[in-house]
């Protein structure tokens, strides 16, 4: 009996201490990890979407809380006005979460473009969503509406052949981003004015 109690106590203490240490390390590295992701993952996607902007969209960002989640928004200035805003949206793909950076033109109410940031899709099939422009190029210029779908589901986006689930997930992420955009548009407009000076 004594041994039994010792086993339970040792395991519990060990697990709690490990949990505590991990929480501390997680907190300690969180901001550094965010900076690295901005530089290596989101950075290229944002620069790609905001090509030709007068400012540095990665520097000019603000945070808003949507629902329970805090999101980062990136502002692009074109023709002297901060007219474009981009943020990341997620959906479940074939091999895990897919992150899609979606940029909106606030003046024309149209999508400026979309770019895949993170994914764990099959190399050569689903991974082409990030590596080849065929899929994401179809999003630029679409009006902000109820959502986008692949042609197989009665929508307007041609899926990557052999990667329907991935294509669906990308559409899903873009649709979610559209929903979020419509939901918090006034807040975005308010924040974005601050970058107009």
């Amino acid at each position, binding site marked *: 009996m004594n*041994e039994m109690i*010792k*086993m339970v106590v*040792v*395991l519990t203490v*060990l*697990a709690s201490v*490990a949990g505590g*240490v*991990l929480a501390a*390390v*997680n907190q300690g*590295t969180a901001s*550094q*990890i965010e900076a*690295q*992701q901005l*530089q*290596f*993952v989101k950075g290229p996607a944002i620069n790609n979407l905001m090509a030709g902007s007068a400012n540095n969209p990665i520097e000019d960002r603000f945070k808003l809380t949507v629902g329970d989640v805090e999101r980062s928004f990136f502002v692009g200035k074109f023709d002297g006005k901060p007219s474009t805003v981009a943020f990341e949206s997620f959906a479940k793909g074939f091999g895990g979460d897919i992150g899609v950076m979606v940029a909106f033109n606030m003046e024309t109410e149209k999508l400026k473009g979309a770019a895949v940031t993170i994914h764990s899709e099959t190399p050569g099939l689903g991974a082409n969503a990030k590596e080849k422009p065929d899929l994401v190029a179809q999003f630029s210029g679409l009006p902000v509406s109820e959502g986008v779908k692949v042609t197989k589901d009665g929508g307007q986006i041609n899926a990557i052949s052999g990667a329907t689930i991935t294509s669906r997930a990308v559409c899903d992420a873009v649709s979610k981003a559209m929903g979020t955009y419509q939901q918090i548009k006034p807040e975005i407009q308010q924040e974005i004015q601050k970058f107009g000076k």
Partner: protein
Amino acid sequence: MAKTIVQEFTKGLWQELPPFRLVLGLCPTLGVTTSMENGLGMGIATTFVLVGANLLISMLRSIIPAKVRIACFIIIIAAFVTIVELLMQAYTYPLYLKLGVFIPLIVVNCIVLGRAEAFAYKNNISRSMADGLGIGIGFTLSLGALGAVRELLGYGSITVWGDFSYNLLTNFPSFQPFTFMVQAPGAFIALGLMLCFINVVGSK
């Protein structure tokens, strides 16, 4: 026949060199050695986990009950692996992206659990540290060597770290890289040749 601390350390460098002499830890050995940088990065991450886990397990060996020791080892090892994963994300993000799933897989690396069970649980702290460090450095050098061979043949270059690299094509423009060596079958062939070489040298 008790070994000295120095012997505990050096055995990991040759006698018990993990991938080549014991043929342990083959999953990362085959999986990540597409370049020297990847191999070294993976080796260093594993070394950190090995030394940390050996240290803690050796410290706690008198209070860990024998019946739940494996569970305790796994908790300790998993904690160290998660720390490594977070640190790599924070400071060497490109390398973290390249190594991908192999970093969390250190948890199930048989070398780490093997050293914990076979050595750290039975020996004092300084010997366990020496053992972990020796095995870890041996593992790092093995992965680095295998990575260097594969990268040299497959891409014609050797990348030690970041921009510190050498490209064969600058001196021998006629060299044709055979990409085969950096793909999965090339890993087996390179490992086989390496084992052959190590056995020939070792048998003398």
